[in-house]
């Protein structure tokens, strides 16, 4: 007999079951290329095979239902994946979002516009069609009168104007949007964040690798640390990119702090030169070995609107990891850490990033602001413009991007 009491009990039980096992989110993946170890593959696969998270193999409550892949080289894996995991590949972005029908038929979109064969412009930027892919999604959202959360891997676009219009569209159509690098959400050595509201006197990041993939990662890593300062991020006033011996000269002249550089390098597990030869630790700044190790250094100077000066040094030949240092008012020693890029092929840091995306798909709220990536996209573009304009200092009034850091730290702590 169904009494009021048993009814309430069964309703409560159903409620619990429902909360735990809501309908899987229907996910569309839009990517440039899906080959082994492309971002499309290692991020896309997380939604198919699950991923390690907080000491368990986590299966997202999501089902990839459709995929668009812009390029299918010989080593393409997308067709195998579609067969094995039962989703459709469509020839256009619109069809992918509508799953071949006439209305938006997915709950979330993952745009992974990294890797693949795309031209570079005169600034050395690879012209990945992130904006173009995103814009096709937005057109579907507008036409079909419904918008769903979008994740955009890495920077928004090589062009700030395009990047800005992407963020504007998400505001206009009220869909949550997340973007950027894995570095802000990977493990840190040591595991800490700067205290919210702290006064940062100067910040410095050391990275390595090519432009414009790796300098972007380094800028995002630095930005996720310094956005926690003062009353929040207020944007960038001017940038300058210098190269070659001018970088060492700038260090001598105090344009960036050699103490911070030494602190950042003290976090590296991969110093090259003598450490590569016989594994001895090195005090690279004091020993003055950097000029011999780094034939073509680059310094990205960033002047923030609130007066903060930050520098990214790309030191190919000196190290192979990404390290941050800052001087914080009231703290005697520099605060520094390594952003741990875990080894290939697992690249478990991409699981950290996909978990943040999953959080957004579940809650319809981005765990950290997309404005961070809007700003880093713009900083990078302007720095590369400075590079081709005789390394000139460029005013950047368009980079008045203001936002607040997330209330909670976003790196793995459990």
């Amino acid at each position, binding site marked *: 007999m169904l009494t009021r009491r048993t009814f309430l009990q069964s309703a409560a039980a159903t409620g619990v079951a429902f909360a735990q096992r809501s309908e899987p989110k229907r996910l569309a993946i839009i990517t440039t290329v899906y080959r*082994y*170890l492309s971002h499309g*593959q*290692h991020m896309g*696969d*997380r939604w198919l*095979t*699950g*991923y*390690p*998270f907080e*000491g*368990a*193999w986590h299966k997202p409550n999501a089902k990839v239902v459709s995929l668009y892949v812009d390029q299918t080289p010989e080593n393409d*894996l997308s067709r*195998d994946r579609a067969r094995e995991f039962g989703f459709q590949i469509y020839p256009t972005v619109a069809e992918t979002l509508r799953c071949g029908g006439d209305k938006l038929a997915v709950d979330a979109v993952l745009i992974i516009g990294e890797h693949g064969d795309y031209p570079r412009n005169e600034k050395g930027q690879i012209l990945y069609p992130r904006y173009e892919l995103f814009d096709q999604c937005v057109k579907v959202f507008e036409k079909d009168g419904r918008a769903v959360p979008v994740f955009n891997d890495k920077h928004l676009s090589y062009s700030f104007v395009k990047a800005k219009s992407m963020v504007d569209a998400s505001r206009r159509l009220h869909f949550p949007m997340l973007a950027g690098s894995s570095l802000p959400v990977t*493990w840190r*050595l*040591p*595991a800490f964040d700067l205290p919210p509201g702290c006064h940062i006197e100067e910040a410095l990041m050391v990275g390595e690798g090519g432009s414009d993939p790796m300098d972007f990662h380094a800028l995002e890593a630095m930005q996720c640390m310094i956005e926690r300062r003062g009353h929040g991020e207020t944007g960038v006033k001017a940038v300058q990119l210098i190269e070659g011996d001018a970088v060492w000269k700038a260090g001598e002249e105090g344009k960036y702090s050699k103490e911070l550089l*030494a*602190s950042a*390098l*003290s*976090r*590296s*597990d*991969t*110093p*090259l030169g003598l*450490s*590569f*030869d*016989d*594994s*001895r*630790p*090195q*005090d690279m*700044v*004091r020993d003055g070995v950097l000029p011999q190790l780094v034939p073509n250094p680059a310094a990205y100077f960033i002047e923030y609107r609130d007066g903060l000066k930050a520098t990214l040094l790309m030191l190919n030949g000196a190290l192979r*990891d990404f390290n941050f*240092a800052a001087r914080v008012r009231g703290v005697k*020693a*520099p*605060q*520094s850490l390594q952003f*741990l890029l*875990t*080894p*290939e*092929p*697992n*690249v*478990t840091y991409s*699981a950290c990033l996909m978990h943040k995306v999953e959080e957004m798909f579940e809650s319809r709220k981005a765990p950290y602001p997309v404005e961070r990536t809007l700003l880093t996209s713009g900083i990078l573009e302007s720095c590369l413009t400075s590079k081709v304009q005789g390394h000139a200092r460029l005013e950047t009034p368009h980079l008045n991007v203001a936002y607040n850091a997330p209330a909670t730290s976003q790196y*793995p*702590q*459990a």
Partner: protein
Amino acid sequence: MNIPARPKIAAVATTFFKYSHAQHIVDRFLDGYGWNGVHHRPAMDLVSLYVDQVDPKTDLSRERAARHPQMKLFPTIAEALTLGGNRLAVDGVVLIGEHGKYARNEKGQTKYPRWEFFEQIVDVFRKSGRSVPVFNDKHLSWNWEWARKMYDTSRELGFAFMAGSSLPVTWRTPSVEMALGSRVREAMCVCYGGVDSYDFHGLETIQCITERRRGGETGVKWIQAYRGPAFWNALRDGVWPRELMESALCRSHTLTPARPGFNDVFPTVDDMQRLVKDPVAYRYEHADGTKCTMLLMSGLLRDFNFAAQVDGQRKPWSTQMYLPMPDGRTTLASFFSPLVYNAEKMFLTGKPTYPVERTLLTTGLTAAGVESLYRKGEKLDTPHLAIRYQPTQESTFERS
């Protein structure tokens, strides 16, 4: 005990080549190392070095001595400690008995002369009527009786004695510590490497966490080892909790992809059996009932991962003891930095920063595990491992 403002340290090593433990440790005293956000230079001088085996083709000790003239090479351990005189002339000793060409016994143990070196060190102490702190890299001796003697001698002469692996003191991903007094029912390390080598690191990984359980360490009652088919049968029979094994594996950054074309998939037991050619398990029980399992699964992963069942916690407690390994991934074995830092603290204060009893126990466990393997997986009682001690209040792993 009188500790000078700038202690003099002697290092005693089996051999010294690129990536040898001696190179990692001695270089940190000589050249400093990244620590706490600066290039830290130890407030002490490594003034003497004894190297047992010098291979002219690979040796780096002579280059180090030439570049750091304050460090002299001596042909005997006694001279390294007396600086060529007739009395102890240093304030601390680092003993590094890892690597080098030493015989293996029938059980597969490499007979590194740690005890023999230690005896020569304490001989100088006795003759000089003065003892100084000793740091012993890795386990105490492959031979349990000798290991026990090393411990007993340190107590008899009353000098500070530290030993062990870098696993207990390195970074963790995530950076977490077991709450003191937790009720740990089961603990496990899933790692890689060989017997009488990395098994010790796996055991130290387990012990540095489980010693924090309620009541502290009570010693170990028995141990049983599994290898080859016996390992797979034990896994399938649930001899150790599958849930803990999976949790530990989910902390790995290096799982071998079990399927071509996939970079990070969770392996089935069949996958594991295909990938791991020579699996080894040591299962043992502490006197208070806590059970532990150390799994060597070379071929499946290349890192050290820990998981435990703790009363009152629904999910396993797990982390990775992170080794930035110079096997192509890094150039520095930075996990030696916290090890050297802890040794430095002992040399400056005369007090160990964590109990040597931990390593006495893991030394005995390593030898007992090897013995059980030698006896084809026989379950062995270990009354000699009734070693009780309390953990440090403060965590000693790298966090800053």
